[in-house]
């Protein structure tokens, strides 16, 4: 059962990703797109966590952790670009 639930949840999260990318494409504003991307990062983390359970391996933990860190930095940089242009001042 658990495997099926995991697969189902993965599918749900993947669906969420599709919704995110849709928002990313249509925008309309740049902050919208950044937000969509940030959400994608978070959903990807979910996907990795689920995948680890699916494979019964803890190998994907570092990946998820890193996506959390990197997604944050990416979002900050992108937003700062809209605010200041010069992201490192």
């Amino acid at each position: 059962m658990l495997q099926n639930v995991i697969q189902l949840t993965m599918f749900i999260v993947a669906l969420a990703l599709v919704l995110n990318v849709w928002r990313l494409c249509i925008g309309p504003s740049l902050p919208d797109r950044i937000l969509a991307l940030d959400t994608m990062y978070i959903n990807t983390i979910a996907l990795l966590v689920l995948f680890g359970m699916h494979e019964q391996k803890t190998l994907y933990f570092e990946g998820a952790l890193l996506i959390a860190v990197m997604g944050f930095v990416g979002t900050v940089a992108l937003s700062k670009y809209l605010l200041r242009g010069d992201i490192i001042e």
Partner: protein
Amino acid sequence: MNIYLEVTISLFLLLGGVFALIGSLGLARLQDFFMRLHGPTKATTLGVGGMIIGSIIFFSATEAGLSFHELLIALFLFITAPVSAHIVGKAALHRQIACEERTRNIPWQRQSDNSDSTS
């Protein structure tokens, strides 16, 4: 793994998945940026949190001993999610992105409808 554990994990996972989907749905269907900002910031983050709890239980049950390291991911997420939301929101504010008309106290329209202003 016993069935109760499996059900617990499944619940956490499904709940998390639903929250994640709702967050993304909000992002997809709400009308203006600032409204859309709420979905991912909370629902999605919480959704991932739920899945992580599920994962912790799962690995603690399958591997020898407790497995807490996924908690770290949740920690990072909960630290960073509000900051991300803040900085994106700030950018949107700066760009004065069109809001739904019914939004009250739109900062860059302060001059026109000061009546409703707080403070």
